[in-house]
């Protein structure tokens, strides 16, 4: 078994909705009881529609949001309750985030060199006399060559793809174990996209980085990822090895997502009927399956009992009363 880097248990994030009314506050359940494990040298894709909570998961793990409830074990140590500056700094040097917008995440008045030097200095990674060499190494790693030339440039002199590479080089500066990539390619042109995905594969293989790859693009997810987590309205509705899940998805929502991907090889007959609805998190959602209003397979029980995540096949679990029914109480327990 590959070693565990980040073990996320029961991650929950509720945001207060509108104003408090007579002492009773309502909450948007952005993320509800999400558990998964990131392992070294593995890429885990987290997919779902806008508002499904997938970016919130990444942001909580990057400690940009405080979780409502969670236990996060980083290499075996519980970091969810750590609040001290030094502990946070240590955690952040190991768990880094790559943002969607490479245009907004770099300082326009600073050179590329500055962006990459900062983390090296702040976290005291190298001595001053090795700084230049390390900056050049990092730029070379992400394919920005010749490094001395690129280092002197300003963000506006770079293309979107190059900027995203700078953003990645910056995260690599602190030698992270985990990279949280939030839609890193969705703002890039198609011809540039593959280059970034290939870079992720290279980093996974050469540096054994554990990736959480947040995306809505199933084809890109399949290209790089080993495992997949499918989120719907704040819950994980299906998870497992990506090839197994995409080849034969259990949850009707995963099937729906899959059928929406443009694929010239797929006949129209294979497409499933799309029913309108929202994947976004609900305010104080009632019990029952959150997909029930859109589900072509829904039965009675779906509208009043929330289905548990059931490991219906080896390492492949889904939250569905119909396709992944829980037979006994023993099996009813959420998949570990």
């Amino acid at each position: 078994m590959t070693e565990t880097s980040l073990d996320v248990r029961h991650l929950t994030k509720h945001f207060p909705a509108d104003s408090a009314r007579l002492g009773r506050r309502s909450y948007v359940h952005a993320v509800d009881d999400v558990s998964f494990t990131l392992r070294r040298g593995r890429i885990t894709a987290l997919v779902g529609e806008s508002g499904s909570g997938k970016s919130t998961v990444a942001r909580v793990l990057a400690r940009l949001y405080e979780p409502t409830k969670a236990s996060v074990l980083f290499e075996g140590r519980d970091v969810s309750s750590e609040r001290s500056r030094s502990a946070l700094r240590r955690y952040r040097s190991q768990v880094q985030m790559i943002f969607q917008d490479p245009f907004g995440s770099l300082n326009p008045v600073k050179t590329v060199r500055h962006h990459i030097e900062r983390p090296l200095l702040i976290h005291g990674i190298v001595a001053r006399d090795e700084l230049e060499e390390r900056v050049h190494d990092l730029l070379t790693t992400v394919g920005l060559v010749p490094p001395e030339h690129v280092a002197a440039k300003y963000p506006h002199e770079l293309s979107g793809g190059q900027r995203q590479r700078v953003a990645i080089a910056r995260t690599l500066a602190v030698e992270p174990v985990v990279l949280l990539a939030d839609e890193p390619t969705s703002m890039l042109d198609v011809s540039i996209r593959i280059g970034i995905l290939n870079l992720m594969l290279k980093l996974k293989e050469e540096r054994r980085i554990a990736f959480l790859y947040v995306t809505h693009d199933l084809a890109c997810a399949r290209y790089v990822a080993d495992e997949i987590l499918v989120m719907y309205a704040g819950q994980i509705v299906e998870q497992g090895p990506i090839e197994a899940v995409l080849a034969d998805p259990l949850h009707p929502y995963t099937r729906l997502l899959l059928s929406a991907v443009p694929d010239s090889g797929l006949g129209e007959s294979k497409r499933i009927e799309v029913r309108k609805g929202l994947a976004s998190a609900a305010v104080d959602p009632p019990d029952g399956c959150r997909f029930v209003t859109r589900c072509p397979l829904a039965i009675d029980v779906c509208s009043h009992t929330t289905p548990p995540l059931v490991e219906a096949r080896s390492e492949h679990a889904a939250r569905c009363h119909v396709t992944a029914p829980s037979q006994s109480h023993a099996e009813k327990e959420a998949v570990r």
Partner: protein
Amino acid sequence: MTNVVEPMAEVTATERRSEVLVELRGLAVEYGFGDRRVRAVDGIDLAIHAGEVVGLAGESGCGKSTVANAVMQILRPPAHLTRGSILFRGDDLTLKKREELRKYRWRNVSMVFQSAMNSLNPVMRVGDQFVDMMQAHQHVSKKAALARAAELLDVVGIDKRRVRAFPHELSGGMRQRVIIALALALSPELLIMDEPTTALDVIVQREILQQVQDLQRDLHFAVLFITHDLSLLLEFADRIAIMYAGEIVESAPSARLHENPQHPYTRGLMESFPPISGPLQRLAGIPGAPPDLADPPSGCLFHPRCPLCLPEEAAMYARQTTERPRLREVERDHFVACHRVEGVA
């Protein structure tokens, strides 16, 4: 499905298809004046037949939206047409007067813009925006226009009662549908869609495109569909033109393009989309970035990124770096602009 928008004439689909609706001849558009000029579109020939779905694909900055704006006749300074003509049913639009063009827009050709969901007036009810647009083009009472708006909303799958809604009360996907309904209100013969679904989720995107396809089959309007997502076009378009740095480098019926892409750029684009099913292999994508159009490379515009442009092959290399390849027919209805594939003809 509906009798809201009547078909234009009693002609069969095949007859209709053979008729050329819009034709671009040697179209060139520049931005800027004097010595600060960027040639965004450089000599494009493109024909759109009645009832046909034509896809235009390419990366950001390749000039695809500029082409759309030219067909819609909404180019504004600093953009200006420097060469070529735009024919609508044989009439050259570049020679028309302002008032004639105002009537042409929306009635003959309408457009769904990039991020169109934000192009509705936020302080006007949806229905009133229909009334506004329709009264600008024809004598119609407010009541009749509202009735028509309700019918059109129904056509695109939105509850009729939503004519009373304000845009902020609708989701992104619903607003996009409203825009499509608005674009179809005067039964145009050509609908231009410029990245109509880029800002939307995959599922909403598919719903909307499916709906446009159904409407298109019922009402027989032509579509010029502009997107960077080639995989989407392969599914929805009858014919696809690939643009690179202001030029069309390849055009063919979708199925042909899918089976037999010829231009190295087209092949590169195809290899930029990982497949969702079947075997998976490492893709190469396209190295480098599109050229700066203020200072384009010599010869073939794609040569700095082209995997088939090798200094070892001196004679071919010299040609690729000095001579601009012309678009030529390599097989029936399949055009390619590449020095390498000329021999195939």
